């Protein structure tokens, strides 16, 4: 056997699996590797393994989803009707809460602009400390197992 064929087999044994039958050298290397790795050829019982998170996750239970969505929408419409509200009012109330938060933010920045230098420095320090802590926490690798 040529050195090139042996090299190709060592790089990718799946590409030419019959090479090992004809090359004694590669057969010896493969046998030695298998002996060293102590490969257990016993059959694996799938049911004995714990359930992986991705098993069955791609299933789309449309009857459940559509049924639940229809029930929630029906209850929402019934309650809106009973309360004399229109769906537009719900959107308005959400926007009003955003406006309230924006007002709080504006008043906080106004306060900061007029605050003594000591307070401004304390705020700057708090800003740096909190963001440094955020970076430290973000550096930690996730622990979750394969999804």
């Amino acid at each position, binding site marked *: 056997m040529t050195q090139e064929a042996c090299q190709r087999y060592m790089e990718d044994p799946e590409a030419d699996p019959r090479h090992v039958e004809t090359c004694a050298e590669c057969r010896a290397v493969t046998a030695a590797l298998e002996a060293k790795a102590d490969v257990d050829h016993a059959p694996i019982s799938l049911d004995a393994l714990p359930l992986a998170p991705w098993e069955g*996750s791609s299933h789309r239970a449309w009857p459940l989803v559509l049924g639940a969505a229809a029930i929630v929408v029906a209850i*929402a419409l019934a309650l809106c009707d009973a309360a004399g509200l229109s*769906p537009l009012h719900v959107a308005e109330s959400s926007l009003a809460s955003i406006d309230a938060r924006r007002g709080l933010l504006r008043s906080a920045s106004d306060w900061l602009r007029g605050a003594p230098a000591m307070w401004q420095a304390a705020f700057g320090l*708090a800003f740096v400390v909190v963001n440094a802590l955020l970076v430290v926490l973000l550096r930690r690798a996730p622990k979750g197992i394969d999804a």
Partner: protein
Amino acid sequence: MRRALRLFLPLTAVAATLVTAMVAAPSSFRLRGPITVEDAMATIQNTAVIVSLLAIWMFAAVGFTLLSGREIRYSSLEMRASALHCFALGLVAVTSFVLTAIVFSYLIPYHVGVPLLFALGVIAILTKIYGTIAVFHAVGMLVAGTRTREQLARRRWLRGDLAMVVVGVIVLGALRLIPIVGPIIWALASVFGIGTALATKFGRREPWFLAWRAVES
């Protein structure tokens, strides 16, 4: 199913006790005196707004899960694997968002503040939406997730990411309807969600920062 009952029964008992105590308590024990017609109307309006927002959450959750179910599942797993880290990260991230928003508001007169504030708002809203959907998935898995293959094979509807997210929306939505306690639970869920979204980089399993390594000669 037994696990779901174990979780559902105490929650239902607590919710029922709270609601019963608020409705049936003598007027002298109530915080705001006897219920008037205006109070009842305001309660109905408040409930209508909450349930309408819940319906919007359900559509958003289903849409997000259809688009990136794998990422949502990974974030949900991370939340259950390291809940404390996600919660701490969520608290720090919310504080950071607020402080950064104040700093950007401070910069509005210098014109650079407006685009920065807009970008921060978009990032914060996306983080909250993604994280809350991951919380829905985690709650759905805790309440109705399958533990064995036989259970998985037996179920026709109550399996898959989509079903878990819907179950989570319903459970958290039901809890949201409880006065006083509901908004607190929802706020805690948001903190958990923001922490999980950031801890997993929106389920992408990539590091936020590249580690510096010296070139080996």
